[in-house]
C-alpha cells in the first residue's frame, strides 16, 4: 500500500465516520445469537432474607422462617397446604385415614416406593422417632428456670403430639397409627417433620440395620441411655453454622422430596434434583437460595442475581421500584396471614382499664386512613379489618362478620363521639396515653404519628414511645398503655387462645372477659373448622362489645419474580412461595 492510497483510505474512513457521527453509534450489531424461547435454564435462584439455620427445622433453636422455603422442596409430608390455606392430601408421600372419632385415631401409610435420597426406605422407625421427639415423654432429669422438667429432645413444640400415645408397630412397617388421648382440632396437619431415623441412629452409636430395629427397640423400651445421644443429635447435630458457610456431610442430610442438598457457601444454598425421588420429577435441575439483605432484593432482582423473592416487610417503595422494572418482573400482591393491631393495657389502674376509654380510642383511630396510606399502596385490595381470627381473603370472613354487628359501630372515625365518651368518664382532658411501638420500625412510627394527629383532637394526648425492646415492655403491665404490632395467623383452630383468655401467655394487656374465656374452652375441643365458626363469631362479637384491641388491617404481602420464570405465585401461608417450586421453569431468552 503506497502512502497515497493509505492516505485516501484514511480520508475515506474519516469522512465516513463524520457522516456516521451525526446519527450513528459504534458497537452495534455485535450481539450474540439469542437463545430460542423453548429452552429452559438449568438453575433458578431465590432470594431469602436470612440463611436457613438447620436441616431439622423443628428444634427449639432453629428459628429461620426460611427453613420452610427449603423444606418445601426437600421434605415431604402427608399433607400440603395450598396458598388459600386449604389442606390437600399428598398422595405421593403416603395416605392417611381417620378411623375413629373417640378416641381420635388416624392411620397413616407411607407410599411403597418412598425412600430417602440415600436409598433407605421411609418407614416405621422414622415415624416412631418423630413421635419420640415431639411427644415430650422423655424427661432428661433436668429442669428449667421455672422448675418444669426438660425433655431429652429439644423440640420446638409438643403441641398435639403430647396427646398422642406411642404408635405400635415393628421396624420396617410402612403403616403406623396415631391415637389421641384428647380430641385435637388441628390433627390433620400434625404428622410433619419426619427426620431420617437411620442417620440419627448411626450418629448415636446404634445400628441402622434391620430397618432401624435397634432404635425402634430403644424407643419402645424407653431406654434413656440409648436415646440420650439420639436426642442430642436430633436436637443439635443437624444445625448449620451462622450464615451457612457450608453444609454438613452430605451423608447426614438425605431428603425425601424432589430435590436434595448439593452444596452451600456464604449463605447460598444449592439444591439439585433428587435422583431417588419417586414422584413427579422436578422441572428445573437446580434451585439456589441466596441470602440477601431485605433492602437489596429489588436491585438484585433487577440485576438478574435472583429470580424470585418474597419481601417479609413489603413497603410501597419496594412495590413502586418493582413496578419500575416494567416487563422484566412480575409482581403479585395479596394479604399476608398476619395483621396489624393496637393492644390496650386494660389491667389494673391503667387508663384503658375503663371500657369507655377503650371505646373512645376505637372511635378516634383513623383506620381507613391507615389502610389507605400503609396497606393499599402495596395491596390495592386492602381493607379495614374487623375480625381477629379470620382475614378478609378467607372465605369465611364475610359470613362471620355478618354475625359481629358491633364492629359496624366503629366503621367511621367519630371524634365527637370519642370526646363525649371521654368526658363521660369524668377524666380531665387531655388523657395522656403512652403509645409504644418497635423502635426499629419506621412504619410503626409513621402510624403512631398519624394516630396521634387524629386522637389528640378527641381529647387524648398520645405520647409516642419508640421502644427498643417492645415485647419485654409488653410483659410489664403498667409500663405502657397502648402498643401497635402484628400477630401472625397460623391457620390453626386453637392457636389464638392464649391471646384472648384470662391469664393467656400473649394476653399482654391483662384482658379478662368471662364470656370470651368460656367460648374458647369450647373452641379448643372441636375437631373441624366448621364447628369452630359460630363459636368464634360469638367470641369476636364479645371482643368488640368489651373492646380487646383495635384491629387495623391484614398486612399486605408481595411476591416478585423475573418474567423469565413461570410458576411462582403469591402464597401467604408460612410455607412461603416455594411450596410449588419444583414446577417452576425459567426460559433462557
Amino acid at each position, binding site marked *: 500500500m503506497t502512502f497515497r492510497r493509505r492516505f485516501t483510505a484514511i480520508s475515506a474512513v474519516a469522512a465516513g*465516520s463524520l457522516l456516521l457521527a451525526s446519527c450513528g*453509534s*459504534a458497537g452495534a450489531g455485535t450481539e450474540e445469537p439469542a437463545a430460542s424461547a423453548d429452552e429452559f435454564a438449568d438453575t433458578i435462584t431465590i432470594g431469602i432474607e436470612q440463611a436457613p439455620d438447620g436441616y431439622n427445622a423443628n428444634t427449639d433453636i432453629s428459628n429461620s422462617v426460611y427453613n420452610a422455603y427449603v423444606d418445601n422442596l426437600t421434605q415431604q409430608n402427608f399433607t400440603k397446604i395450598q396458598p388459600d390455606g386449604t389442606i390437600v392430601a399428598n398422595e405421593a408421600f403416603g395416605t392417611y385415614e381417620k378411623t375413629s372419632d373417640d378416641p381420635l385415631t388416624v392411620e397413616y401409610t407411607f407410599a411403597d416406593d418412598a425412600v430417602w435420597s440415600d436409598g433407605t426406605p421411609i418407614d416405621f422407625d422414622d415415624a416412631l422417632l418423630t413421635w419420640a421427639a415431639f411427644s415430650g415423654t422423655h424427661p432428661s432429669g433436668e429442669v*428449667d428456670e421455672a422448675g418444669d422438667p426438660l425433655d431429652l429432645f*429439644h423440640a420446638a413444640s409438643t403441641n398435639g403430639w403430647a396427646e398422642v400415645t406411642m404408635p405400635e408397630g415393628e421396624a420396617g412397617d410402612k403403616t403406623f397409627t396415631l391415637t389421641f388421648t384428647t380430641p385435637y382440632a388441628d390433627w390433620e396437619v400434625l404428622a410433619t417433620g419426619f427426620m431420617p431415623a437411620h442417620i440419627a441412629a448411626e450418629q448415636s452409636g446404634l445400628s441402622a440395620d434391620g430397618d432401624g430395629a435397634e432404635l425402634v427397640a430403644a424407643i419402645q423400651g424407653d431406654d434413656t441411655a440409648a436415646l440420650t445421644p439420639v436426642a442430642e443429635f436430633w436436637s443439635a447435630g443437624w444445625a448449620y453454622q451462622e450464615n451457612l458457610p457450608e453444609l454438613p456431610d452430605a451423608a447426614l442430610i438425605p431428603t425425601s422430596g424432589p430435590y436434595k442438598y448439593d452444596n452451600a457457601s456464604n*449463605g447460598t444454598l444449592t439444591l439439585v434434583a433428587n435422583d431417588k425421588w419417586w414422584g413427579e420429577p422436578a422441572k428445573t435441575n437446580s434451585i439456589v437460595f*441466596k441470602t440477601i439483605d431485605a433492602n437489596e432484593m429489588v436491585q*438484585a432482582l433487577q440485576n438478574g442475581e435472583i429470580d424470585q423473592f418474597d419481601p417479609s416487610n413489603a413497603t410501597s417503595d419496594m412495590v413502586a421500584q418493582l413496578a419500575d422494572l416494567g416487563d422484566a418482573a412480575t409482581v403479585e400482591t395479596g394479604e399476608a396471614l398476619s395483621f396489624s393491631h393496637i393492644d390496650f393495657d386494660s389491667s389494673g389502674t391503667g387508663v384503658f382499664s375503663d371500657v369507655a376509654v377503650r371505646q373512645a380510642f376505637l372511635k378516634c383511630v383513623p383506620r381507613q386512613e391507615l389502610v389507605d396510606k400503609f396497606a393499599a399502596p402495596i395491596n390495592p385490595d386492602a381493607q379495614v379489618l374487623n375480625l381477629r381470627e379470620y382475614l378478609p381473603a378467607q372465605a369465611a370472613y364475610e359470613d362471620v362478620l355478618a354475625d359481629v354487628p358491633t364492629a359496624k359501630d366503629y366503621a367511621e372515625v367519630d371524634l365527637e363521639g370519642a370526646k363525649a365518651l371521654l368526658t363521660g368518664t369524668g377524666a380531665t382532658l387531655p388523657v395522656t396515653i403512652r403509645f409504644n411501638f418497635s423502635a426499629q420500625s419506621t412504619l410503626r412510627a409513621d402510624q403512631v404519628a398519624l394516630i396521634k394527629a387524629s386522637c389528640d383532637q378527641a381529647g387524648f394526648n398520645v405520647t409516642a414511645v419508640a421502644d427498643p425492646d417492645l415485647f419485654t415492655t409488653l410483659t410489664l403491665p403498667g409500663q405502657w398503655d397502648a402498643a401497635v404490632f402484628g400477630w401472625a395467623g397460623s391457620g390453626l383452630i386453637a392457636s389464638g387462645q392464649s391471646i384472648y383468655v384470662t391469664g393467656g401467655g400473649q394476653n399482654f394487656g391483662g384482658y379478662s372477659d368471662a364470656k370470651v374465656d368460656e367460648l374458647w374452652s369450647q373452641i379448643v375441643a372441636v375437631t373441624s373448622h366448621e364447628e369452630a365458626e359460630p363459636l368464634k363469631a360469638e367470641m369476636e362479637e364479645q371482643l368488640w362489645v368489651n373492646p380487646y384491641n383495635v384491629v387495623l388491617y391484614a398486612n399486605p404481602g408481595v411476591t416478585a419474580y423475573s418474567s423469565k420464570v413461570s410458576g411462582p405465585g403469591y402464597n401467604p401461608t408460612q410455607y412461603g412461595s416455594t411450596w410449588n417450586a419444583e414446577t417452576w421453569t425459567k426460559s433462557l431468552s
Partner: protein
Amino acid sequence: MFVFVVRRAVVSFFIVLASTALMYVLVALSGNPLKDLLEYNGPGREARIAARTAALNLDVPIPGRYVLWLQEVGTCVAPGGDECTLGLDRKLRPVLPQLDVALGSTMRLVIAATVLALLLGVVTGVVTALRQYSTFDYSVTFIAFLCFSLPVFWVSTLLKQYIAIDLNTWLQDPQMTYASIGLLGLVAGLIWTIVIGGDARRRLVVAAVAAAATSGTLIVLLNVGWFRRPALGIAGIAVSALVLAFLWSALFAGLRPRTRPVLYASLATAVAGTIVVALAQPLMAEMTWLTFGALVLVLIALGLGIGYLVGGHTRRLAMQISAVTAVSVVVLMSVDQLMRAYPALFKATGGRPMATTGSQTANLNGTFWESNLDLGLHLALPTLAIMLISFASYTRYTRASMLDVMNQDYVRTARAKGLNERTVVVRHTFRNALIPLATLVAFDFAGVLGGAVVTETVFGWSGMGKLFTSGLSNIDPNPVMAFFLVTAVATVLFNMLADIAYAYLDPRIRLR
C-alpha cells in the same frame, strides 16, 4: 529488638485484656439477649429460654461471664486445651467457625481496598505535592475533601444503582453514540490537561491528543466487539511490558548513560517475559495457584538473571528493576487471562457480570481465571466504596509529608549540589516522606474494618461486619466479642509492626 517485642507483647496483652473487658461489659449491657424469645409466643418457650440461658451463662453476673469468656479464649491459645469455640452464639453454635469464614471474606475486602488506596493515594499525593497550588492540586484537594464528606452507605447505594446495574445493562449490548464517544474524549482531554499542566499551548496539545486517542480507542474497541470479548493479546502484553520497563527504569534509575544497562536489562526482561508467557499459554486453561506461583517465580528469576548478566556496574539496581518488570509482566498476563475469561463468566451470570450483592457467584465451577474474575467483579464495588476515605487520607498525608520533607535542609542541599530533579524527588524526598505512612497504614486498619461493617451490609457480604451487626442487633454477645477480639489483636499487632518498620526505615529511631 527482642526485648522490645517482648515488652510490647506484654503491654499489648494487657491492653487487649482491658479493651475486651470494657467491650464485654458494654455489649452485655446493650440489651436483653432473651429478647426474641420473650416475644416468641409459640410452644417450647421455657425450654428455649433455659437452653440459651445455659449456653450464654446468663445466670452468671456480667464480670463472671467475662471471666468464663476469657476461659473460652484461653483454650484457643493454650496448647492441648479443650475444644476451642470462642463461646456459643444465641443458637448454641460455636463462634469460631463463623469467625473463620467471616475473617476470610472480610480480609479479602480490606486488603484489596488498603492496597489499592495506598497505591493510588501515594501516587496522587506525590504528584500533588510536586505540583503544589496547581489546578491539579486543587482538584485533588477538593476530591479528597469530598471523599471525607461522603457517607459510605450513601455512596454504596449510588454505586450499586448507577455502576453495577446500569453498566450491566450497557454491557448486554455495548454500543455508544458518536456524540457520547466525543464527549468522553473531551472529558479525558480535560482530565489529562489538568494532570499534566504546563503553558496554554502545551495544555491545548495534551487535550487534543488525549481526546483523539480516547475517542479513537473507543471506536476501535466498540467496532471489533472488544467489550464482548476483551483481551490484551500477546502483542498487547509485549507493548505494555516494554512501556512499563521503560517507565520503571526512567523513574527509579534515570536515563543517563551511566544507568543505561538498567534500561537494557528491564527491556530485555520485558521481551523475555512476554516470550515465556507466550510459551506458557497452553498452561493457562489448567492454571492453579500452584502453577501460577511457579510461573511468577520463573519470571522473577528470569528478571533477576537478566539484571545480573546485563547490569554491569549497576547490577543491583538492574536486578531490582528487572524483577519489578517481571512482576509487571505477570500482572499484564493475569489481566489478559482475566479478560479472556470474561465471555464465559458473562454467559454464566446470564449477561450480568457486575454483582450488587454477595462475594461470589454460586456454583460457577469455572476455571482458575473465571472464578478469580468473578471474585474480582464482586470485590470491585465494595472495595471502591471502602477505598474512598482511605484514598483521601493517603493522598493528603503523602502530600503533606512530601511538602514537609521538601522543605528540609538536606533536600535543599541535594538540589544545591546539582543533583537532578528525579534523584532529589525519588531518592531524597519520596523515601523519607513514605516513612510516616507506615504508621498511618497500621492505624487505618481499624478504621477500614469499621468501614467494612457498613459496606458489607449494603453489598450483602457475610463477613466480620455481618457478624458484628447481626450480633449486636440480636444482642448476641459472643459473635460481637469475636469481632472485637480480632480488631483489638490486629490493631496492637499492626502498631507493633509499624514501629518495627519505622525503626527499620528510619535509622534515627531505636526500639527500646
